[in-house]
């Protein structure tokens, strides 16, 4: 479902996005939550999810998250991440990204 921004009129996706296969896109943006399932792969220049992301597969991106980030036990994260909270399950892999966690309003500046 999309709604129009009352200020600029731009269409905004508000649903959660569930990624079950490979998603190779420039931008993946939603006002909801992104869930990357174990066989899902997100390869994108930019990921924005204002209710956070649950990564059980592979994510390779620069991510700006308004909600919590969960990186699952068998998940791989590659790239930058700015989020209010981060959970990393034992066994998860983070392959060299710049992380800004819980740094408030400076999140986007510090991660870019």
């Amino acid at each position, binding site marked *: 479902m999309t709604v129009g921004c009352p200020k600029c009129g731009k269409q905004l996706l508000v649903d959660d996005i569930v990624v079950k296969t490979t998603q190779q896109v420039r931008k993946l943006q939603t006002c909801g939550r992104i869930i990357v399932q174990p066989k899902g792969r997100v390869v994108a220049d930019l990921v924005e999810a204002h209710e956070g992301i649950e990564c059980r597969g592979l994510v390779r991106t620069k991510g700006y998250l308004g909600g919590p980030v969960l990186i699952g036990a068998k998940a791989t994260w590659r790239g930058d991440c700015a989020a209010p909270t981060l959970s990393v399950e034992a066994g998860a*892999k*983070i*392959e060299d990204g710049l*992380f800004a966690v*819980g740094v408030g309003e400076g999140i986007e500046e510090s991660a870019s």
Partner: protein
Amino acid sequence: MSETNDQITIIGADTRISGEMTFGGATAKILGSCDGKITAKGELQIASGSSCKAEVNAARVAIDGVVEGNITASERVQLNGNAKMTGDLVATTLVVESGAAFNGHVRVGTDAVKGGGGGGSSVSEPKVVSVNQGEKVGQKK
């Protein structure tokens, strides 16, 4: 400086140390402040209200205070709710509690520790320890 078994080495709240510190297998707890380099074979705890500008190498690191510098942990790094950390982090397991602030490059996983990087060197026997829980913060743009 420290001894093994159940003993804990404590650096007091009004203590300031500059230079290189090495702790043995026992837990080391820093309540004061320190600059330089810290090496610990066991657990290093940086308490709330303390601050460290140091390069840290340890098996396990638990942070409640403020840390500026790179951390390499062969087992686990835990950033508790009051923790503020700036610097690069290499660990087998990372736990970030809700409320912790962190800014820096991260490499997590057994491969990350074996390959070294981030702040340091000389880590051994990586071991997965636990799973963390982050609370939902419902923050919207």
